[in-house]
């Protein structure tokens, strides 16, 4: 079973003369434990593809299946709980780490767990373990403003991993980092894909960062190729 299946996905913004096709008939499959890059220039549609898989952007046509569950088939499937699926099946890593500024590193990870129904003590234990595994045990109580770019992005990764998602979606995760930190983050994602058996889709425009990825898709003018 694939972690992610996208079949003939099309996303059109607007209608009539002003309609813009961001994605045109894209199809891809990603297996659990696979690390996949989606490369493309700005405006090529790669973020639209990511947000459609991430249950944020409703596809106009086509089918999206996450962990065996069809979530979109010519639009969202009736009765589907998108928030719950995002909580339980997906993890997100952002271009800017998007940590909550008024929460410590530990609390930023805990919040994802508590939203998913874990008790405070359970969430604290698991969050502390994740941070320790990412060599951030000593920064648990630091606020995002006190963390370096690389540390903040690792906290964001810990938050994305917190609920042991089947799929992790990363939108330009190295864009705000220097080359060395960027490579470290990509290396970490590779390790996590294998260890957690999660499918990881990374959107980036920087080809230097995708060495060692299992597969690379190229998106251009809304069309996907490669892989």
């Amino acid at each position: 079973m694939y972690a992610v299946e996208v079949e003939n996905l099309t996303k059109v913004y607007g209608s009539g003369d002003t309609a813009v096709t961001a994605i045109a008939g894209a199809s891809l499959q990603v297996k659990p434990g696979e690390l996949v890059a989606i490369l493309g220039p700005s405006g090529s549609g790669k973020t639209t593809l990511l947000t459609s898989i991430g249950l944020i952007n409703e596809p106009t046509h086509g089918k999206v299946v996450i962990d065996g569950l069809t979530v979109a088939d010519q639009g969202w499937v009736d009765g589907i709980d998108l928030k719950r699926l995002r909580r339980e099946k997906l993890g997100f890593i952002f271009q800017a780490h998007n940590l909550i500024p008024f929460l410590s590193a530990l609390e930023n990870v805990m919040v994802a767990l508590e939203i998913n129904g874990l008790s405070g003590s359970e969430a604290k234990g698991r969050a502390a373990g994740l941070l320790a595994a990412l060599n951030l045990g000593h920064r648990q109580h630091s606020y995002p403003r006190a963390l370096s770019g690389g540390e903040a992005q690792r906290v964001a990764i810990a938050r994305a991993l917190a609920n042991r998602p089947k799929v992790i979606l990363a939108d330009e995760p190295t864009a705000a980092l220097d080359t060395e930190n960027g490579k470290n983050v990509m290396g970490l994602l590779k390790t996590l894909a294998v260890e957690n058996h999660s499918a990881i889709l990374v959107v980036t425009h920087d080809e230097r960062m995708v060495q060692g990825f299992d597969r690379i898709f190229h998106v251009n003018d809304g069309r996907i190729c490669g892989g």
Partner: protein
Amino acid sequence: MNLALRDIRYHRGRFILTSIGLGLLLGVVISMGGIYRGLFADALAVLHQTGADLWVVQKGTNGPFAESSRIPEDLKYRIKGVPGVAEASPLSFQTLQIDRQGRPFRFFLIGYELSGLGGPGQIIAGRDIRQKHYEMVAAKAMKLQLGERLRLGQHDYTVVGITGKVVSSSGDPAAFVTLSDAQEIQFKKDNDAIRNYRSRIGADLADEPALPPAQAAFLAGKIGAVTESTHTVNTVVARLAPGADLDEVKEHISRWNHLHPISNQEQRDILTKGMIEKARMQLGLFRIILLTISAVIIALIIYTSTLDKLKVIATLKLIGSQNRVIVGMILQQSLLMGVIAYGIGYLLILATYENFPRRIVLEGVDLWALFVIVIVICTLSSFVGIRKALKVEPAEALGG
């Protein structure tokens, strides 16, 4: 994890300052409620102090507080004789403003018979008036010392006792002297004026050719005695005997054409519905305006605070947060701000209300009502922030 508290903890400086500002505003609202209650208490203070069932005043007036009333002192004997009246006492009221230590010193002077109604009641320092003349009991708010002497009219009066919070309906602190002293202060002319009056009366009568000189001199003496008399009072108050019918007593007194009997309840209505009604409405309007300002401020604070957190809210939505988590965060912050501001306002007024120039009466029912209003305002004000937050798309978390 409580996100509202975490946010407040992180931005505590801003939150505390905002709450203090709002607290000061709510303090003013609380104090205005207290001033209104104080107006009420002040208006009724003399009424309570006197403890009369009936106020007999000049016909055609609503005296002695709302209008001027003058009646002869000796009416007390006739009123005492009315069936059902157990006790009747004449009282004199006047507002005085004198110079004291180079500053205007204003107070309400009550003249009463030492054995009658309307005296100072509880003495908290010193003693009651014992001598017929030149002793005074002052309300605490006058800030006079025992033994201090005050020049009123043509004589010095010594403060022999201090009583509690007795004030006039306009809030001036009250002082008590004997009725005869009060009458002298109010009505007795100085010696030059008396001599002048007597000369004028004498000259007028001397010009009357029909009057023999001896008769003119006799009449001059009699007219002088009448015009110089100080035996006038503003009201005669009466206490009824147990079981007496108030309406019957009023009916009896009303038959005398020149008097107007007013029951204690009617006097209370005159004082509260007539004299302080406009002030009450004014204070009520101010309170509404201030509460509206508070609501606008809270709404603005919550809205701008929500705008600051749009990315946080989008991120929370993206990672699957339920709307109730986001709504809860905004609502709790708004409520917490309101509760803390209310607490600050309340403590501020509690610590200072005794130093206000006018009496502030804090009543539990008013404080609770305002607390509920503040909670409602905070809840409604948070809706602008909640509305904005619910419109945020999770996709806004993406990008730089």
